[in-house]
């Protein structure tokens, strides 16, 4: 028996390339292309009066300067709305280049194309825009106030959408409850900040009527479809390649950012390759943010801390436009109940425009907010009723025998939210054992006696992952016995070249490093959806599995005929297809690929042998390629899930606050996670650890400091604090495995898991340490100072 690769911490196939500087990121491509710089709006809300380009006339090397007036046809229309929804009644999206009104600081007003980026920026800074500034609405809660300034001149208020839903009878539950509490929670914005910003290289070929676009996108197939439509091109002549991508975390899933349309447009106009590489400041003010929400929660409990009914009314900060529809608040609402059985639940949210950078999902996508609210609610109930926080969780968990469990609200894919499987109490036990919870509490009491501020925080989450509609994989066996796999969704560091190779390796008996995975290249596979919502391993993994099974079947048929045995007697190992019990009888997988493609000419030794085998295989057939067979050993298969699958996990943190610096020291950070069957534990752990760092960053270090004029005050890494190694603690990882019954591999997604409970655990721990509720996030030493010393 060869070892099954599924489940092994196989070293990554992509690493040698990335470690030796041979990675190929978008900015590494086409150094000779013309370069773009953009003029972006300075005010957050203004009318454009005039754009004066006269200062650029004597700058050598400028190839073109474009404003809205230069756009025609569909290019002059607002960019597409990606995800419509009945509740979204003001679906505003931005123009590729601002048209009369700018609605956030950073909105693209003019594009300069020049010989190099230095010159392009010279010209961009010589362009003078005259504005008539307009009243700005920057704060989310202010945006909801009647009579507040409007983010868009043509609107009466700032509400872009509203959705509500209910299950059970919340009013009756509240009336019957022994305790009814009302609490407010808010969370400010956060940003993904991948180390590589966005980038685009466009090559429009007029004579071929084709477009080749390198784009650091998480969804190349979507970009391709949209651009084909916009440019009026045959989709088969639009190729979008997402090469190596330096992190995405959701920020790169949006199509279209204005630059994604403008750069290929300029390439067509000028007839040359054109390139744009986002700089860090542009990433802060031109790439989407997330997170901003404010909740008003009402919850009714019995005396034992069981939740009888709950409702939340919340606001979601859309920013200036909402091309991603209502997805973020919908996810928040759908995932709010977490692992708890809440029979009566109601929510209503309003999606509000503000004059700030637009929002769309960032790692966690609506869930960090939901989990933060729910987990604060649990801790506050415990405090009110003088119960232990772990005990209150225990009393409210959905039991292991209650699956499938209908949460009773709509999920982001429009279907019901139905949990497939979970062992929530066991998960908590694993977490508390690992933490040695009883001891940790004892230490905390001891510390308190010494006047030290120690706190323990727990955060539990359920994460819907692996949503549809589908994903595909095209697999091909080459003559040398290696296997290529093409995926429509791209990789931003999740190890696609390895995990999917592991699945293929098991099925076809080929070494993992002989399986070459290309992800996110529409030249290799035209259909696919994208890498987001922790879905690639789930949906893509099962597509790869299906395709590998299909190849195995095809190969077995051909091999059986060549070897004159029954297909059932064949085993696939070490690149060979052998007859069980007859070790000498075998044929190489590569040879089968050759046989499957009967050629007139034999090239090289391998194919000469193959020609002989082919003659034998087809001796009984009336033609070289029997009816119903296709040449080559290749296939493309697609997997479409019936619904999402629900991973879960819990984090616990022990912190101490330094009363002098008001800084937070994380003494322990313990993680329990369950993402069903694990393909590669090393990679899964890496996803969790990276996610935890982003969760901690978002809870305590990273704050997008907008002023009331919609100006981002800290748009640089100097002022926006992403944690370094010195801020991130050693994280203790534990996992359980509750397979999903909904897909053949039993997988659930993991990409976002580590980040989701970050704000919840930190808020709970700081509340615990200070004995004061932390109900607005993120927090900073200054906030702690205010609580400690200013009452």
């Amino acid at each position, binding site marked *: 028996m060869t070892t099954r690769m599924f489940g092994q911490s196989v070293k990554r196939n992509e690493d040698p390339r990335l*470690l*030796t*500087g041979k990675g190929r990121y978008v900015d590494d491509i086409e150094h000779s292309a013309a370069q773009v710089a953009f003029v972006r709006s300075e005010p957050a809300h203004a009318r454009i009066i005039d754009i004066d380009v006269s200062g650029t006339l004597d700058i050598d090397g400028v190839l073109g300067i474009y404003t809205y007036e230069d756009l025609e046809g569909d290019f002059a229309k607002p960019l597409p709305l990606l995800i419509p929804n009945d509740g979204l009644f003001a679906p505003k999206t931005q123009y590729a280049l601002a048209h009369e009104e700018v609605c956030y600081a950073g909105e693209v007003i003019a594009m300069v194309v020049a010989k190099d980026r230095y010159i392009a920026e010279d010209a961009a800074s010589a362009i003078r825009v005259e504005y008539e500034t307009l009243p700005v609405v920057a704060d989310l809660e202010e945006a909801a106030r009647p009579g507040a300034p409007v983010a868009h001149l043509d609107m009466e208020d700032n509400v872009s959408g509203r959705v509500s839903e209910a299950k059970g009878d919340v009013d009756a539950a509240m009336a019957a409850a022994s305790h009814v509490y009302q609490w407010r929670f808010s969370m400010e914005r956060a940003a993904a900040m991948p180390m590589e910003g966005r980038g685009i290289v466009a090559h429009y070929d007029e004579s071929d009527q084709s477009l080749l676009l390198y784009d650091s996108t998480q969804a190349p197939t979507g970009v391709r479809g949209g651009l084909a439509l916009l440019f009026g091109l045959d989709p088969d002549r639009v190729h979008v390649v997402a090469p190596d991508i330096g992190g995405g975390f959701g920020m790169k899933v949006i199509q279209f950012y204005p630059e994604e349309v403008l750069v290929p447009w300029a390439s067509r106009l000028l007839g040359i390759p054109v390139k744009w590489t986002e700089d860090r400041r542009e990433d802060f003010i031109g790439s989407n943010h997330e997170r901003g929400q404010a909740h008003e929660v009402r919850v009714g409990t019995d005396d034992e801390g069981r939740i009888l009914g709950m409702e939340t009314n919340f606001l979601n900060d859309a920013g200036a436009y909402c091309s991603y529809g209502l997805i973020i608040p919908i996810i928040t609402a759908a995932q709010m109940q977490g692992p708890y059985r809440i029979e009566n639940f109601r929510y209503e949210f309003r999606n509000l425009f503000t004059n700030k950078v637009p929002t769309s999902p960032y790692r966690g996508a609506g869930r960090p907010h939901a989990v933060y609210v729910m987990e604060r609610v649990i801790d506050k109930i415990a405090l009110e009723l003088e119960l232990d926080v772990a005990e209150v969780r225990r009393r409210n968990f959905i039991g292991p025998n209650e699956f499938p469990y209908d949460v009773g609200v709509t999920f982001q894919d429009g279907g019901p939210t139905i949990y497939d499987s979970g062992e929530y109490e066991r998960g908590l036990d694993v977490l508390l054992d690992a933490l040695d919870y009883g001891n940790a509490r004892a230490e905390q009491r001891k510390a308190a006696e010494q006047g030290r501020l120690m706190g323990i925080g727990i955060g539990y989450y359920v994460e819907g992952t692996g949503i549809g509609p589908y994903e595909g994989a095209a697999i091909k066996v080459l003559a040398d016995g290696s296997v290529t796999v093409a995926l429509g969704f791209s990789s931003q*560091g999740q190890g696609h070249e390895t995990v999917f190779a592991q699945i293929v390796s098991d099925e076809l008996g080929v070494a993992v490093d002989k399986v070459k995975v290309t992800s996110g290249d529409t030249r290799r596979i035209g259909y696919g959806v994208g890498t987001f919502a922790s879905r690639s391993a789930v949906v893509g993994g099962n597509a790869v599995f299906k395709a590998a099974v299909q190849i195995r079947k095809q190969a077995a048929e051909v091999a059986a005929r060549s070897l004159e045995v029954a297909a059932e007697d064949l085993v696939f190992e070490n690149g060979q297809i052998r007859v069980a019990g007859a070790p000498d009888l075998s044929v190489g997988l590569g040879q089968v690929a050759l046989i499957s493609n009967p050629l007139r000419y034999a090239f090289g030794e391998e194919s000469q042998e193959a020609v002989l085998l082919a003659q034998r295989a087809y001796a009984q057939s009336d033609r070289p390629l029997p009816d119903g067979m296709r040449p080559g050993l290749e296939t493309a298969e697609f997997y479409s899930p019936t619904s999402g699958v629900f991973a879960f996990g819990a984090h616990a943190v022990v912190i101490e606050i330094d009363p002098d610096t008001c800084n937070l020291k994380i003494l322990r950070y313990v993680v329990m996670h369950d993402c069903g069957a694990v393909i590669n534990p090393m990679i899964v752990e890496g996803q969790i650890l*990276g996610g935890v760092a982003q969760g901690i960053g978002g809870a305590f270090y990273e704050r997008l400091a907008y002023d009331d004029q919609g100006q981002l005050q800290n748009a*640089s890494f100097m002022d926006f604090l992403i944690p370094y190694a010195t801020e991130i603690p*050693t994280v203790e990882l534990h996992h359980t495995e509750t397979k999903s019954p909904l897909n053949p591999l039993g997988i659930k997604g993991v990409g976002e898991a580590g980040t989701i409970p970050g704000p919840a655990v930190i808020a709970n721990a700081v509340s615990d340490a200070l004995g004061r509720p932390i109900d607005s996030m993120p927090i900073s030493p200054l906030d702690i100072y205010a609580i400690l010393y200013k009452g």
Partner: protein
Amino acid sequence: MALNPGESARIELTVNGIAHQIDVEARWLLSDVLRHTIGLTGTHVGCEHGVCGCCTVLIDGEPARSCLTFAVQTDGAAITTVEGLAASDDGLHPLQESFRMHHGLQCGYCTPGFLMTALPIYERAPEMSDEELRKAISGQLCRCTGYAGILSAIRGAAEIERSRKGAES
């Protein structure tokens, strides 16, 4: 050398042992010259204001930010980039091998900067405390890994080097 805006000057520098003569404008960053003029795109740019460390290279043996260095300042210097690390095309430097072994990279964008920062210190890393090692790399940002794999990788590289030497002798 004194240069006015827009003027170019010829500089000579050695990159990974290869001598180059290049005409550079005064304002050209070393990172741009390495990436776009010489074509060594392994050096990455994450912020262009000296905070993320993605662009770290060795200038005369010392880690330095190539985004905060004008190319013209490196006249006569010897520069090592990530491309100069591995001895041969298919072999990996022990530090690179260790990053692979300990999952010290995900997207790989920050990786060249971490490798160049760790190069002068990895041999001492096993003796460093956790805090010391964290401080030693606290000029580098990684958004993917949470640093755990990077720390183990730097700590484990010397061991890989030793076992390779052991295998040779």
